[in-house]
């Protein structure tokens, strides 16, 4: 009898896994369960091109919706999984039905971290994770709208850039001392701070938001230092939380994400996981980590799908990320740490430069701004774990490929 593979989650990882299973010749039943009303789609444009109204929703799909029917993939949208019975190898769904699986892939991703502050119930306060969020924000984001963004990370700054271009009055409130603190060096933070300021965005750092005021809809954002900012619209981007609850309740090992091995297998031999939700080992980096990135979702999903079919291919990639703000393409390869030695390549004034991070003499990360060549070169160089002369690295005319 045909096997049934069930995929929980219809994001980048779920979509990629279904595609890989079929392209590798799996002929059994595939059921994919998603909580949104859409087939798997590209999430990054939600805070960029989709918000700016530059692209239509039907250009976001990973595969056109008819593909799932053509490939005999039972895509169940608007559906949640209530629980996993791993002894009985079945799932209970929010519509009351139960489905049996032979192998299961958990690709539940993350959800936004919400701020439980006074006034949080007011209208006009949004988070951004799904198409519905973008559409709701878009409806209120018009020229001259006062937009207050809580959190100066990727999402906050991308929304700020779209708002500024649209002619909104944008203020970004960041709790730490600089924007994108977690992911880039102070030099890169300063460059982005200046770029936003030049575009008319006000960035306030080191300020903690304590609540919202308004009648029905939000009209003010209140901060710990007593300052207040007028707001017609608030967008909060303060990180995400992995959706591990059903896995944990089922008895799978969870520790800063759903724990999997290098083949994307969980502590249960018939259950796999991929994407933002996983805590996985990476031999290239040494140690375990949980990532929030499309690259990880796609690549780990391929590993998981192969493993579900009995082909074990170790997952170990140098992680990479990107953010588009204004005319700046920021690409991040590798993971930097605050104590890394920072080497500048090129002049920020040209809007094309890179910042390199050395640890014990080895290149571990690069932030490339409008510099796709360095981005590509860095991927290989970081994986090579070679010691590199900082003076040579600082010479922007010497390609990374030649180091």
């Amino acid at each position, binding site marked *: 009898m045909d096997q049934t593979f069930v995929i929980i989650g219809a994001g980048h990882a779920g979509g990629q896994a279904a595609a890989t299973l079929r392209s590798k010749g799996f002929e059994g039943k595939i059921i994919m369960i998603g909580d949104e009303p859409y087939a798997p789609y590209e999430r990054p444009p939600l805070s960029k091109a989709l918000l700016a109204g530059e692209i239509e929703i039907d250009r976001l799909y990973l*595969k056109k919706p008819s593909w799932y029917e053509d490939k005999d993939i039972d895509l169940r949208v608007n559906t949640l999984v209530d629980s996993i019975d791993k002894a009985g190898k079945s799932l209970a769904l929010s519509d009351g039905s139960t489905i049996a699986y032979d192998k299961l892939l958990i690709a539940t991703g993350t959800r936004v971290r919400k701020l439980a502050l006074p006034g949080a119930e007011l209208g006009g306060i949004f988070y951004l994770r799904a198409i519905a969020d973008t559409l709701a924000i878009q409806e209120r984001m018009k020229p001259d709208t006062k937009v207050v963004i809580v959190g100066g990370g990727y999402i906050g700054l991308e929304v700020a850039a779209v708002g500024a271009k649209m002619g909104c009055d944008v203020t970004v409130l960041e709790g730490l001392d600089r924007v994108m603190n977690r992911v880039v060096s102070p030099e890169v933070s300063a460059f982005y701070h200046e770029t936003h300021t030049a575009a008319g965005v006000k960035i306030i750092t080191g300020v903690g938001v304590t609540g919202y005021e308004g009648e029905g809809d939000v009209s003010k954002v209140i901060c710990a230092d007593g300052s207040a900012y007028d707001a017609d619209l608030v967008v909060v981007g303060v990180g995400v939380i992995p959706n591990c609850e059903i896995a944990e309740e089922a008895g799978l090992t969870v520790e800063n994400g759903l724990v999997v091995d290098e083949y994307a297998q969980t502590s249960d031999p018939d259950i796999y996981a991929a994407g933002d939700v996983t805590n996985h080992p990476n031999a290239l980096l040494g140690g375990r980590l949980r990532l929030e990135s499309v690259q990880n979702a796609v690549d780990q999903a391929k590993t998981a799908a192969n493993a579900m079919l009995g082909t074990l291919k170790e997952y170990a990639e140098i992680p*990479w990320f990107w953010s588009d703000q204004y005319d700046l*393409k920021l690409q991040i390869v590798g993971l930097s740490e605050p104590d890394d030695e920072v080497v500048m390549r090129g002049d920020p004034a040209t809007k094309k430069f890179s910042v390199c991070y050395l640890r014990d003499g080895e290149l571990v990360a690069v932030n490339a701004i409008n510099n*796709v*060549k360095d*981005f*590509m070169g860095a991927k290989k160089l970081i994986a090579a774990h070679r010691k590199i002369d900082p003076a040579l690295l600082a010479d922007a005319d010497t390609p990374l490929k030649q180091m």
Partner: protein
Amino acid sequence: MATINVTNRDGETSKIDAEVGISLMENLRNNDSELESICGGQCSCATCHVYIDDDWVARSGTRSDEETELLEELDCMKEGSRLSCQVDFTAELDGLTIVIAPDE
């Protein structure tokens, strides 16, 4: 319906249906290609690399500097190399012949 002749990484050739007005990458993605196109068509990652058949190169448009920079960093760049997200699939490309480049 327009079509594209695609040779995949296993060397198997097939004819796929294509839609005019979207990119070559989107057309490949809508079918069964192994292309990743991780960045979603932003000319950022070079994971949608294809080789355009010699007879079609002239009709497939020209590379931007950025696309060229990305391609030049790949080990397997060739004469007909393109990032498929940067190729608009026009009516003129009906019958296009391409090969999916190796995964790097």
